[in-house]
């Protein structure tokens, strides 16, 4: 005990050892193994250790790869834009227009509760709404806006992005709200006293001070969308593909080496994107 007290580094290391062990076994080793297997060969029934670049050559030689990566970025970008606008507006409303802390907490909880329920159920729950005979179509038809059901509501890119926005807007609301609550209200009063109108305060005071929250939200949304494979499969009715689906299809065919190669390229893409975003924010300081 005395020794521990004199050497805080050792006691810190002891305390993080369970964490380090979990991350080593279930994060680092699996990644290392995926890298190794990405150089292996596959037959129909088994995978064979080797060291060749066939999987990567095939990946980069196939036009499908580029379409699928383009799709992945397209989903990420559109979802990011939608969640940012919605998430910022909601957080702004909660932080600056709700006047008592109790109400702020209550409404904030109302926004976060769906996050703690099942994503799959939340995807399924769009079926009665978007389906061919769903609520959206029948409402629009009864209003006379359309004559026959719109086919592209469910099982389309539209549905995929709608589901992404539905699932992940919370990841924007929470960090942006968190940063906004830490903005010193006297700054806003000062801006108002200096003659700024509402829009000017928003643009010149609140948005710059909220940037760290926006960045954290962006990291969440972009990585969740880029790594997804279920939402795209389910909401597009298997008609669209992103990189995640490419990997899961290979896995289903037991083509682990080729799945691994794709996975490594996806991981690098995500990490580079995050690396760029992290240059704009120090996460640990902003929590």
């Amino acid at each position, binding site marked *: 005990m005395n020794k*521990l007290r004199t050497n*805080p*580094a050792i*006691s*810190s*290391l002891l305390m*993080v050892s*369970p*964490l380090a062990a*979990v*991350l080593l*076994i*279930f*994060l680092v080793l*699996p990644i290392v*193994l*995926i890298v190794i*297997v990405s150089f292996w060969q596959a037959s129909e029934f088994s995978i064979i250790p080797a060291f060749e670049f066939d999987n990567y050559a095939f990946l980069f030689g196939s036009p499908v790869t580029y379409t699928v990566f383009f799709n992945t970025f397209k989903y990420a970008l559109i979802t990011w834009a939608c969640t940012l606008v*919605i998430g910022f*507006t*909601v957080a702004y*409303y909660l932080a600056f*227009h709700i*006047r008592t802390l109790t109400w702020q907490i209550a409404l904030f909880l109302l*926004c976060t509760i*769906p996050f*703690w*329920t*099942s*994503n*799959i*159920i*939340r995807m*399924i*729950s769009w079926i*009665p709404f978007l389906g061919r*005979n*769903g*609520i959206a179509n*029948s409402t629009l038809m009864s209003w006379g806006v359309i004559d026959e059901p719109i086919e592209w509501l469910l099982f389309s890119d539209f549905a995929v992005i709608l589901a992404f926005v*539905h699932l992940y807007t919370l990841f924007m609301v929470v960090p942006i709200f968190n940063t906004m609550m830490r903005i010193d209200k006297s700054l806003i009063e000062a801006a108002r006293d200096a003659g700024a109108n509402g829009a000017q305060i928003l643009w010149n005071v609140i948005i710059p001070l909220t940037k760290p929250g926006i960045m954290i939200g962006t*990291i969440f949304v972009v*990585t969740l969308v880029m*790594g*997804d*494979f*279920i939402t795209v499969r*389910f909401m597009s009715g298997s008609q669209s593909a992103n990189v*995640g689906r490419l*990997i*899961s299809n290979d*896995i289903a065919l037991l083509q682990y080496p080729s*799945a*691994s190669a794709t*996975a490594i390229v*996806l991981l690098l893409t995500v990490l580079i994107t*995050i690396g760029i975003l992290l240059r704009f924010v120090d996460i*640990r*300081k902003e*929590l």
Partner: protein
Amino acid sequence: MEPRPRSFYVLSAFFGLFILFLYGPTITIGILSFQGEGGGLTFPMRGVSLYWFYDLFEQQAVGDIWGSFRRSFVLGLMVMVVTVVVSVMGGLAFRRKFPGSNILFYLIITSLVIPSILISLGVGLLFSQSGLDVHWSTSGFGSQLTWTLPFGLLIMFAVFNRFDKSYEEAARDLGATPWQTLRHVVLPIIAPSLIGVALFGFTLSYDEFARTLLTSGSYNTLPLEIYGMTTNVTSPVLYALGTLTTVFSLIIIGVFLCVVLITNRRRAQQGSDAGKGDV
């Protein structure tokens, strides 16, 4: 109080629509799960009945729903306990710099942002290559921790960023050992946040899907079971199951929130003895 600006009402309407967007679909399947016997996946309702709920209890052709629920529940508790303990220890350790703290921090971030399918694939490969069988309580358990631990740690970092260290100094000055300081000062102060971490640990595990896909072995967890059903079940029984799990999640969330509320109330009553002494 100054009058509300016009933007308040516009934003209120926007917020209302957002809430409707969040909850509307879930409420819709909640209603549709009471669909009559001849009813389909969309409106109109053909009568109101509990038929699909009965169906859920009887029909086992679609798989082992109750077994998977039990597994998910046990797994959720396991993940919850480990997440709380490991996150608190990690949070305490990260208050100081230690050798490797930067690397470990970046590993935590990686664990959070890594596409889930890589964990699924990598852990699956790790177990198969080392000759072990994947099972929900070993490989599935570990895979889920890579998702819940980063959340737990981020919450702990946030908590300790706001933690007033003078409480600890006071305890130390009064002669408390490090363990006593932790047990009687630090832990009680951060207790409500720990309930938050526990809530994250349980619900994220209970709903986790992508990381358990290749790592749970032959016994499915509930989300995997539901996912399997989406491909071959096209009756409102799917909605009935969805409604039940959502209600279960809501009950869990409610229990956690009540615990936080009660803790805070008790703390407000007993926390300070200022003004009660004989001075």
